[in-house]
């Protein structure tokens, strides 16, 4: 490395010599240029400065297994860019693909901070992308606003402690305690034998859910449910016979779990084949997206899951004034696809960003933006966001309810997600009643 530098310098020198300029002249001229540059930076022209755009970084998994989380990106960001064009101060959104890979997420976040010099970072798609991006922001002192992962999986793996919170990174979403809460809120609506079979994947989410200290098991025992909890399975497994046998043996009328869509489809198909007929099936994560529910097929009717946003939420955008329903309809009109839960949250990230830039003393200065982030008090399309009231300093919670996928014979899409229990967030209206699963003879 050093050698090549020396070589370069020598080559440059030779070139200068051949032009008939000696070393001293070069130094004198170089010094003059430096002084001029210093002058320019000490007295910047205010007009030029005002025209410089504010840069926002946005990292999302556009490719890879978590790509469904980023599916609405083009739609949302396209709309937001149009809006930002009308602002007096240009705002530039720089989007990078994390490829659902933590290392890559970390790399592109570092690029955004160090090369593109963004003064605010946004990220909202599961821990694999959120956490490395937030870590880079904490390290390089740029404020980062994140969402779409239970707050524990954002706070705890990154080494956050209630008495030692983060300085630069802020998060809004619900937590594991809410997800457990909605199950206990929904299940008593149907008469069962209160025997629950739980199938969790052996991955960070599944292990958090199945944790014997803070997960689902202690909460269920406290609520007087009997729990059948086989050890956690490897993701992308092809055979769930062992779990299905255990659930059948114990006569589980409620089945729950946290798994990815392919695993759930394998599990549910095999459960049907092997004659497991529970009254309630509530699976988190696997049933988030209409596409994966639709691909489960005819047996998906009345499966239930967690709901963090639907177009029926009673909120509106602070950026466009659109209601949740209007945003959902605009998405379907633009893409011909059914709405998904991340749409509202991706939109809300840009609401927060616009609000922060509006209130920031100097939107190009990360520290000023951080001060504005901390003081956020905004009514967004996913609910109110104001840090300070959350479970820890850097986290504020958004409402969580439970929903059921109902077949819509006359609807534009095969299934519609209806909110069926709202005990934890009564401000969210109910769309229907919680129904028992039915089987053909």
């Amino acid at each position, binding site marked *: 490395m050093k050698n090549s530098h020396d070589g370069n310098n020598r080559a440059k020198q030779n070139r200068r010599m051949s032009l008939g300029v000696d070393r001293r002249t070069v130094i004198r001229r170089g010094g003059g240029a430096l002084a001029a540059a210093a002058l320019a930076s000490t007295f910047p022209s205010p007009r030029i400065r005002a025209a410089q755009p504010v840069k926002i970084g946005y990292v999302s998994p556009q*490719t*890879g*297994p978590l*790509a*469904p989380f*980023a*599916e609405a990106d083009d739609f949302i960001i396209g709309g937001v860019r149009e809006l930002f064009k009308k602002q007096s101060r240009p705002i530039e959104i720089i989007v990078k693909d994390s490829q*659902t890979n933590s290392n890559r997420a970390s790399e592109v976040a570092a690029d955004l901070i160090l090369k593109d010099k963004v003064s605010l970072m946004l990220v909202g798609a599961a821990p694999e992308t959120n956490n490395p991006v937030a870590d880079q922001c904490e390290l390089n002192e740029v404020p980062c606003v994140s969402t779409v992962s239970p707050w524990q999986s954002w706070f705890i793996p990154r080494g956050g402690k209630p008495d030692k919170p983060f300085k630069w990174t802020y998060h809004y979403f619900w937590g594991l305690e809410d997800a457990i809460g909605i199950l206990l809120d929904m299940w008593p609506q149907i008469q069962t034998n209160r025997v629950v079979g739980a*199938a969790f994947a*052996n991955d960070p989410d599944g292990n958090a859910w199945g944790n014997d200290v803070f997960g689902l098991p202690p909460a269920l025992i406290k609520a007087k449910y009997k729990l059948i909890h*086989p*050890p*956690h*399975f*490897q993701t*992308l*497994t*092809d*055979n769930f*016979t*062992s*779990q299905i*046998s255990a659930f*059948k043996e114990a006569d589980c009328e409620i089945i729950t779990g946290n798994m990815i*869509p*392919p695993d759930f*489809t*394998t599990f549910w*198909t*095999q459960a*049907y*084949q*092997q*004659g497991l007929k529970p009254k309630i099936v509530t699976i988190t994560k696997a049933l988030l*997206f209409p*596409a*994966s529910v639709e*691909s*489960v*097929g*005819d*047996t998906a009717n009345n499966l239930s899951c967690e709901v963090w946003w639907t177009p029926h939420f009673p909120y509106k955008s602070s950026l466009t004034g659109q209601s949740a329903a209007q945003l959902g309809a605009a998405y379907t009109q633009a893409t011909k696809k059914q709405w998904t839960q991340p749409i509202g949250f991706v939109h809300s990230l840009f609401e927060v960003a616009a609000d922060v830039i509006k209130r920031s003393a100097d939107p190009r200065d990360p520290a000023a933006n951080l001060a504005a982030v901390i003081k956020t008090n905004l009514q967004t399309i996913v609910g109110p966001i104001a840090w300070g009231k959350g479970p820890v300093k850097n986290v504020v919670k958004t409402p969580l309810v439970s929903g059921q996928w109902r077949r819509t014979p006359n609807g534009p899409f095969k299934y519609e997600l209806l909110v069926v229990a709202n005990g934890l967030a009564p401000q969210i209206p109910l769309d229907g009643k919680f129904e028992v699963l039915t089987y053909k003879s």
Partner: protein
Amino acid sequence: MYWINTIIQGALVGGLYALFATGLSLMFGVMRIINLAHGDFIVLSAYLAVVVINCIGVNPLVALAVVVPLMFGVGYLLQRGLLNFTMGSDILPPLLVTFGLSVVIQNVLLELFSADSRRLQLPWLETASVRIGDQLAIGLMPTSVFVVAVIVIGGIEFMLYRTDLGRAFRATSDDPDTARLYGVNNRNIYALATAIALAVVSIAGVLFGIRTIFDPTIGPARLLYAFEVVIIGGLGSLWGTLAGGIILGVAQAIGAAFDPSWDTLAGHVVFLVVLLFRPRGLFPKTFDP
């Protein structure tokens, strides 16, 4: 009864694994090419079936009539137009090229079909089963997959050991130079081997797509099991591949019966044990000098 059920379900999954592995086994057996894009070709054929179903509105099994010849053609052109140029004494170029293909296929599928997961719908067959007693129920779909695996493997075995083409395959596999002296066109033989391999892959892909859901990135996970099945069964023997599939499926099922987290582990352990004591697999048939 519990154990009978466990073993039967495991063996049925093994049929699917064997079907996954057959194409890999054939390509590896004839050309010593490890096709790292094998899993992605499985997913690609499932997506081709999606297109066929959307275009002419048939059920997935009928779509096979279009997808299989199509993938046969893709295989032939792939080998003639690309992989033949990578073959030689060095095993690295085909590995790198197929690895690249894997990335390309995934991203092209993502671009064309988005990240949404899909499934080939076959409503009745998907969940139908025959119940034998309280603890034992055999799904029709897994059984059909198993039967298809046996038929496909039987057919290829017949081709390999009873036809001239099969003799050319085996000769080229054992000694390509001598085979050429006897008038065998190696390039054409290789292309036909890949074509047949991908035709089998397309059957596996469509059945896989009926069984569970798939998305553009799910392919590589399928490659590992297929690879293990080939090694357990032994090179060049397709009945060995079927046995390897069943062994892997049953091992996983028994592991999972003790503890669901041992599912994959039990399969890997069996694979390692075979590799330790029978490095050429249980029923090897090819000759490696």
